[in-house]
């Protein structure tokens, strides 16, 4: 809730500019932990279905807020799962501070590119929702079982 009336001529600060360095670090730590849990679910599914999982690298978290607060850029893990007949899915984190969500992961597969966002509020249990799938503009709740269909 705002504490003053927004004026259309107000200098448009970068959203989140009022965060302290500690706040930024706390959000980053939470994001990395959420990615870890998300990937663990996908890896467990892969293992249970005879697919392989690997971590082909990382993506540096270098968003403007991170730089402004002089926080060391965290490394976001990338996950790749591979199945039979060339099926694959790569979970590549896009970033935490995205418009309209509490983090986004791009899901590249042999069948397309999907958008996975966490719709939960900060520090709440994640609500991962998948978009650009099944021609459902409203998206669908993400579960690792979807990999069989998407990859």
């Amino acid at each position, binding site marked *: *809730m*705002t504490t003053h*009336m*927004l*004026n*259309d001529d*107000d200098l*448009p*600060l*970068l*959203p989140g500019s009022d965060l302290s360095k500690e706040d930024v670090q706390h959000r980053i730590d939470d994001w990395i932990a959420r990615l870890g849990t998300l990937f663990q679910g996908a890896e467990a599914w892969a293992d249970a279905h005879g697919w392989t999982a690997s971590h082909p*690298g990382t993506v540096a978290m270098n*968003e*403007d*807020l991170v730089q402004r607060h002089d926080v060391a850029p965290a490394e976001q893990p990338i996950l790749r799962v591979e199945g039979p007949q060339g099926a694959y899915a*790569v979970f590549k984190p*896009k*970033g935490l*501070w*995205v*418009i*309209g*969500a509490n*983090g*986004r992961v*791009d899901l*590249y597969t*042999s069948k*397309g*590119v999907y*958008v996975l*966002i966490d*719709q939960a509020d900060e520090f709440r249990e994640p609500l991962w*929702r998948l*978009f*650009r799938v099944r021609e459902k*503009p*409203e*998206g669908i709740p993400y579960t690792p079982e979807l990999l069989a269909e998407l990859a």
Partner: protein
Amino acid sequence: MQQLPRIKAAYDWFYGQWQREASRLAEAGDVSALAKLDEKRDTLERGVFVLMFGQFEVAVDSIFQTARTRRLGEADWALRRGWDTGSLQGRKIPFETKLSLVLDRRSPTFGKILGTYATRNHCAHGGMELSVGSIDSLAAELYAWCSELRP
């Protein structure tokens, strides 16, 4: 929100083109080219976000004007009270003022809309730091918010 389907359809077409190229690069493992393609998508999505939110602003304005016209016509001052003040006439009425007259300020949606409006202003005034979570998710949110507005 009349033009939102058209804006969304244009974005969907571009996403289809982007997805074809992104899939090709992902399959080839060309991380650097994929990152450059991603930047193009980020730029486009920021623009689409501003255009989409603009449609919501039009909706807020339209419902506000209906609310104002209805109440200005009231003979009973108790119902007309405040609506005939000078600051609510003319065209230069701040967005937050109009919004607060067609949506309860105490609703959780009110704060979310203002937060998104601030982000919209940041992007529209040159901010290039933020990526969009999901254009589809944002569109769904805008329609949901619009359904809560009352004349």
